């Protein structure tokens, strides 16, 4: 076979190869939507769709950041408790300044800034420990997960930190309102996802992250500043946790030690269901978005139906997650 005819075969093989990997998560999502529509007439109602999309936004925004961290060969278990901690901090700061600043947008703005700065700082700490101190990301973020969870419990004195009621009505629209009938969380999630997709595919940063995940030695030899890129993936993730928290606080107006519980697992699962490789080297932001939607829909659909013992919800979720990934796995024989 000459070089030329080999090329044809190669390209073809690749296209066929891509199909399944690309279609897999989409098919899983469509199957879920079909099941939902069959089970309940209201499933496709505007109200339900808005609900599902809005509440997906927290995990969704975080999962976009997680996609970069994982693509670059990292992992972050701390995002859930980081969100809780940032939410607590944001509430404390707003409550603290309420007497002086009064309820209103300036104070909201201060709260937002607090969340973003805290997110960046927390991401920086994770990234610093992983890169400069060269500690396994799993351990670093397992450690910080415990630390943030513990700090928020301590800030709340074991109970709940709640935003002053005067402030709640001011901040509520951030979650519940929107433009053209589309709520802010959906808009922000969409913007973050689009920006993430563009950065992953069309910016040097995305490429560098993938290169580092694929082979950090090669990346280093190709003049990629490996530590900086890796650190930045954690910082961006922290920033996005801050953004997600800004959406979260208006929704519930409080934070406690159970805020953001297990978000890390959900975000990581969404990333992997979406086709990003857990060991790094290849990431797909749009896939992550589909993964997030799949996970939210599973919950939503379980709420649409009777007849299953609620004790078994977790089992059904587990089965669907595994099935969704079976759908997209590589069909090639082990060879």
């Amino acid at each position, binding site marked *: *076979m000459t070089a030329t005819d080999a090329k044809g075969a190669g390209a073809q*093989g*690749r296209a066929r190869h891509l199909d399944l990997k690309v279609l897999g998560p989409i098919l899983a999502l469509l199957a879920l939507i079909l099941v939902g529509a069959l089970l309940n007439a209201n499933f496709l109602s505007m109200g339900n769709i808005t609900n599902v999309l809005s509440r997906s936004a927290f995990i969704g925004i975080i999962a976009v950041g997680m996609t970069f961290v994982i693509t670059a060969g990292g992992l972050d278990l701390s995002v859930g408790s980081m969100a809780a901690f940032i939410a607590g901090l944001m509430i404390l700061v707003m409550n603290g300044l309420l007497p002086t600043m009064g309820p209103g947008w300036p104070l909201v703005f201060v709260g937002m800034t607090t969340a973003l700065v805290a997110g960046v700082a927390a991401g920086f700490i994770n990234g610093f420990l992983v890169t400069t101190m060269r500690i396994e990301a799993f351990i670093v973020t397992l450690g910080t997960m415990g630390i943030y969870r513990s700090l928020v419990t301590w800030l709340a004195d074991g109970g709940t930190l709640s935003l002053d009621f005067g402030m709640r009505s001011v901040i509520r629209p951030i979650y519940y309102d929107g433009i053209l009938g589309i709520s802010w969380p959906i808009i922000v999630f969409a913007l973050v996802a689009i920006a993430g997709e563009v950065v992953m595919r*069309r910016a040097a940063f995305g490429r560098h992250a993938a*290169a580092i995940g694929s082979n950090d030695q090669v990346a280093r*030899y*190709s003049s990629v500043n490996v530590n900086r890129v890796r650190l930045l993936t954690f910082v961006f993730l922290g920033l996005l946790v801050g953004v997600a928290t800004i959406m979260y606080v208006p929704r519930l107006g409080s934070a406690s030690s159970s805020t953001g519980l297990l978000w890390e697992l959900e975000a990581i699962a969404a990333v992997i269901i979406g086709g990003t490789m857990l060991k790094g*080297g290849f990431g797909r932001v749009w896939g992550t978005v589909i993964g997030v939607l799949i996970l939210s829909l599973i919950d939503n659909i379980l709420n649409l139906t009777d007849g299953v013992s609620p004790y078994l919800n977790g089992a059904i979720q587990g089965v669907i997650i595994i099935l969704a990934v079976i759908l997209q796995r590589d069909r090639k024989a082990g060879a």
Partner: protein
Amino acid sequence: MKLSLRNIDRSFGAVQVLHDVTLDLHPGEVHALIGENGAGKSTTMKIMSGYLAPTSGEVLLDDRPVAFASSEAAEAHGVVLIHQEFNLAELLTVEQNIFLGHELKRGPFLDIRAMRERTRHLLDRLDCHVAPDAVVRDISNPDKQMVEIAKALSRDARVLIMDEPTAVLTEREAEVLFSQISRLRAEGVAILFTSHKLDEVKRISDRVTVLRDGHVVAQAMTQAMTEDEMATAMVGRDVSSLYPERAAPVGGEIVLTVEGLTVPGHARDVSFDLHRGEILGIAGLIGSGRTETMEGLVGLRAATGTVRVEGRAIRRDRPRAALDAGIAYLTEDRKERGLLLDKSMRENLTLQSLRDFTRVLIDEAAEDRALDQAIADFDIRAPHRAVEVGNLSGGNQQKLLLAKTMLADPQIVIIDEPTRGIDIGTKKQIYEFIHGLVARGKSVIVISSEMQEVIGLADRVLVMRQGRLAGELSRPDINEDRIVRLAMGLDGVRGAA
């Protein structure tokens, strides 16, 4: 731009691998660095290009001392190294790899179209036809090498250093590379390369430096040295007759029968016999499916057809089946499939034959004895026994891989590219070893892209073309012309496809 080394020493731990190396690369000149496996060639090149720091001595750029803090720093000065082992991110595409760290941008975004075009242009220059958006993991080794070269070319090197660039290339592809080297030389680039193929050295270099055990033992204009003189300078003794004489005749008994072997996508309907004590060569162009056929034969790939060893059909659905039937396969890809680079020599050596070292527990003393034996038999040169195999020189890795395969004591050995990256002295040892095997009644299949190797070793040659057997040649007919004609489809001895 002139790049020089002055009195360079380099040690790894307590082991000194370079002693007082001095060397000049001149613009517009091709300089060859040759030496045995482990002589220190790669180490020298890494020091020149900022990947390693010397223990002592100086690197000079246009006679001014420079201390490259990193490979980036060297690259910023126009000094580029193409590594002996591939240095590509396997999960990225060809284009992404070529521009990694030097992406072209339009505003904040990547200019993907421009990068794709330039990639195609660079690869065209190298007569390489992989698609820019092919994932590197999926392309062939020779194509990977071409991508590495394209990547180096894209960096506008003033000093280009190439560590065994032709080891995985066929002659035709090597020719393409040489024409590029000539072009760069004409443009005033200073070039350093290594190769164990001394004919290449003779043909394309202007100047040679010979390293032995980390010392420069000869430095001369190329035309002043013959290939034999180079070999002698490298090895320290005469290595004229590379291929040993056949000691015993081939036996009549058939030990291996292959019928209708088909490897989907790679090989169709391959049938042949192998005799006791025979060396069977398999020739063909790269991509003709030789590797895949043999991988199918031993069960490493899904395949159909029957394989009989001494009349008994072997299963191919279990990893050990072939080995248990007495067939061992030595892969051409030592880095990805052959050796565990982060493990020691001992663990690598016995991995395939661990059973023979285990009663209930592994007998580590026996393993150590086996390693001593392998080091002696295959002349493996390692800085110390506990070295991570990834830190062995390329040639010594290959020797360890051979030793590992032989430890299983197979009746039939299939060796894919046995001497890739092996120095000329060791090559001879390996050929002698292969002869020793057949003399002891074993049978050997040798796949090689080096025509001379097939011709020099084989009793019989099968030529593959486009996944099928294109023909078979026996002793008096085995010559370059016949092989090439079969491989290119110009002859139809046995009705090729």
